[in-house]
């Protein structure tokens, strides 16, 4: 019975010109978005791999110089992308692309592409994810809004009921028909576009392929759930609406509220609950924190003098030249270690805030499945805030390791020297530079991502289960006349 109904629906849908055109447009947009996305991803990746290599060469071949000068020369960390970013660029336009790793300072990832973009960019990125998140639900709405209300208006519903068709079976048959129609359009579309994109994107960096299949599978499942939610909600509303017009209005309203309004209002709410400090506040707080440090480069600063006296006392000597380690090295290292704490407190607080804000928005996805799928899709595609933070954290950890290696070398190499001589007279060479390993960042694995986005996953599941129940419940109570 269900299959008969599904088949009839599918035939009707296939003969509907609106469906044909809308799905053609959607598939065309999907092809364009994935094609351009793949090209951009491949170009970015090649450039990044090349740049990392060049940067490493520059580092190794910077010549003989003081280790601290090398620390100032620094290294660039380039934020990688996972291949799924070609499908969902997510927040990539709004996160920095590279992080300068140097002495004394924890720099933030700089150069968000959005800052260089035109105002058109603020209307959104035409990506595969946008097509699936915003446009496919519209296609579903288009297919479903008149499914029951239309039959009621045409009088065919009376006829069906008189034939003794169980209401739930009728509704599930229709749901199956819609699902089939969407699948006929999307599955080949996505498969072909995906294969094309994979060919365009070409070889992948093995680092970026971590858990790729798993992530792909979960993304696919998440979108299937998302579409299923829309099918159920749309059918339920069609059942409960006085007319097809009313059903359409309600559904479009639902789409606008969940897709457009809730995310923006959610951003405002999350900022109101966890206010983001201004860059000045953070800067001032870091300034203040760092002021309490050693001031390694200011020999007349009271903190510097106090640290010197402490060291002299500790090693029971009177001149810094008699210390078992270079004082310059000790001072630089102590200053850095102090800085690490200050940065952890301040930037750590900012990152925590981002995480808290994201959590607020994840919770708000109770009001909007679009918010849940957005977050989940970005997370699995490696284009969310967590990914950017992971990168920044890895880069900072790398910087700290680099600075420590270099300072340790000054402590040894500059032993017995004055501060000035230790900084400018002592020189290290390539053998030290190669002790600093190349920067390497592994994107988070599937289990980490799932753990972090548990709220979104649960909310999406709750929406799915809830909408199925709602549809079944509504189906049992379909009125023959409104």
């Amino acid at each position, binding site marked *: 019975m269900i299959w008969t109904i599904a088949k009839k629906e599918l035939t009707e849908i296939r003969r509907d010109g*609106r469906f044909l055109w809308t799905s053609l447009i959607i598939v065309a*947009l999907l092809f364009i*978005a994935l094609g*351009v996305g793949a*090209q*951009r991803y491949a170009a*970015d990746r090649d*450039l*990044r791999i090349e740049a990392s290599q060049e940067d490493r060469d*520059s580092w190794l071949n910077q*010549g*003989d*110089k*003081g280790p601290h000068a090398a620390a100032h020369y620094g290294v*660039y960390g380039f934020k990688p992308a996972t291949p799924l970013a070609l499908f969902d660029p*997510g*927040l990539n336009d*709004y996160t920095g692309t*590279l992080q300068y790793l140097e002495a004394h300072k924890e720099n*933030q990832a*700089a150069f968000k592409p*959005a*800052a*260089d*973009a*035109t*105002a*058109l960019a*603020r*209307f959104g*990125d*035409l990506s595969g994810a*946008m097509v699936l998140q*915003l*446009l496919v639900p519209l296609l579903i709405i288009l297919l479903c809004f008149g499914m029951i209300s239309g039959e009621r208006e045409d009088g065919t519903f009376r006829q069906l009921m008189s034939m003794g068709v169980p209401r739930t079976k009728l509704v599930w048959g229709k749901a199956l028909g819609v699902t089939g129609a969407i699948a006929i359009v999307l599955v080949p579309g996505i498969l072909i576009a995906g294969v094309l994109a994979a060919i365009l994107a070409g070889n992948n960096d093995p680092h970026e392929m971590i858990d790729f299949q798993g992530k792909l599978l979960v993304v696919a499942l998440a979108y299937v759930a998302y579409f299923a939610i829309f099918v159920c909600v749309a059918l339920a509303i069609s059942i409960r609406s006085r007319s097809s*017009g009313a059903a*359409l*209005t309600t559904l*479009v309203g639902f789409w*606008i509220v969940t897709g457009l309004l809730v995310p*923006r*209002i959610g*951003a405002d709410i*999350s*900022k109101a609950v966890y206010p*983001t*400090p*201004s*860059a*000045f506040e953070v800067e001032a707080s870091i300034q203040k924190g760092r002021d309490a440090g050693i001031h390694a480069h200011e020999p*007349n600063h009271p903190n510097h003098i106090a640290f010197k006296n402490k060291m002299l006392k500790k090693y029971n000597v009177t001149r810094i030249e008699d210390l078992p380690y270079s004082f310059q090295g000790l001072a630089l290292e102590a200053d850095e270690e102090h800085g690490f704490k200050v940065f952890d407190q301040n930037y750590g607080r900012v990152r925590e*805030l*981002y995480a808290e*804000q994201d959590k607020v*928005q994840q919770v708000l996805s109770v009001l909007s499945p679009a918010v849940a799928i957005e977050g989940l899709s970005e997370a699995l595609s490696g284009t*969310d805030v967590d990914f*950017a933070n992971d990168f920044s954290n890895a880069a900072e950890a790398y910087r700290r390791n680099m600075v420590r290696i270099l300072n340790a070398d000054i402590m040894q190499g500059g032993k017995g020297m004055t501060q*000035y*001589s230790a900084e*400018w007279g002592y020189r290290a060479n390539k053998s030290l530079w190669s002790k600093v390993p190349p920067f390497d960042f592994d994107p988070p694995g599937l289990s980490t991502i799932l753990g972090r986005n548990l709220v979104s996953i649960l909310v999406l599941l709750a929406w799915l289960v809830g909408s199925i129940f709602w549809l079944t419940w509504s189906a049992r109570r379909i009125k023959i006349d409104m």
Partner: protein
Amino acid sequence: MIRQIMKNEWTLLSREKILYLALPIYLVMLIYGIMNGTEWKTFLYDNSIEAREMADKVFQSKRDTLDKILAGKLKYSYAEDPRLPAQLARYKGYEMATKPPAPTAAISIGQSDVVPSYVKVQWKPMFKQANTDEIENPRNLAVGTFDLSFVLIYLYPLLIIALSYNVLSSEREQGTQVLLLSQPVSVRQFVLGKILLRGSLIIGTAVVVSLFGLIVANPDILSAGYAWRIAMMAVILALYGTFWFGLAVLVNALGKKSSTNALIMMAAWIGLVLVLPAALNLAAKTLYPLPSRIAMVQALRKGDEQATKESKFSRAYRADLLRAGEEAALKASNTDFYLKVLPLEQQAEKIAQPIFDEFENQRQAQQTLAERLKYLSPAAVTQIAFNELADSSAGSFNNFNQQVEAYHDVWRQYFLKPVQENRVLTKDELWNIPRFQYQPESGSTIFGRIFGDVLALLIFAGAMLVIGFRLLRNYSGAAR
């Protein structure tokens, strides 16, 4: 006659539930948008003040230190002398170049949340000075802000659609059309009356609330002589609204069912507001891809390596100086060193320049293309015009960055001279370091930039109305 049609329409509308649901939401959203924008403007303003004060403090502390040194009250090592020109120019001093928000900034947050409104100016190329980005959760940036321009560009057309998609089709469907058309009034007069009423209600509310709200929240708009900008905004939002009403007339004139009309209008909204601008953005990005900032970073590094190779100057210079003893080395390194290292850096920048030029050229080309493509979508035109009026457009920030670049040159020139003369700054020089002063673009420049937008919207709105009312001439009264 039109007046009577409008009066009757008002009576009819006033008995619809949707009005009492939609109007309050609409009002709340307009006000919320204005509040959000105003709050952002205050934030930008506070930042610009704070940034300038930060620079003031730095300059003042240098002057204070010098006073103490000159008065013999401070024991200082050579390296701590605030008058050392290269050190002051490179890392000890800095200017904060700020772009205070325009009084009308609350209209549209535009690009001002992703492009910094204040930047630190020091010796190093502005490109490398990228650490003044405002701290903001990238998700919030990506989602976009709920400002007045969002309400007007996205939600206002939706309200127009909701109230006018069935102006004529509903008359036909409820059967009143035949009676209406048997009166000595033409279809066009009816539609005009209905649209005029809805237009004055929705557009009028938007104009009044926006103007009144903006002025109350930002009294400086009037005192700073920016009133014309909000007047322009009112004109633009009226034209944008008229475009959507015109589309409603056109769609109704096709004589289709209400539900079909609703679908057509929603499709138009999705196409023109959501999909088309995003597609145009993709087109601009694909046709004129920007060289990656990564490439620029690498170019600077390579330039540096090449310049070092070319010059005979060794970066181990200071170590060599050490042979003459520490104090001498210190002194020499603080003057001589920079004398030698500056040309090296300039050479490095020169080597890297082509890629910077390419970046700039591509960016200009992309912006120019975007400026042309926007004319395909009234929503994009309106957004960009609002950005211009709020001084938050890409153009406005380009101008700011050009001013900063120019000031950066002034900064370098000011300190280059004493470095080349191998001397410290005089007291006068330390006191009179040139400051950055933002020159907002003139009203006529802004007007020139939005003139095309206003014209385009006029054509959009006019075309819809003309075509719509022309189609109505052939509208058949016979029931279908």
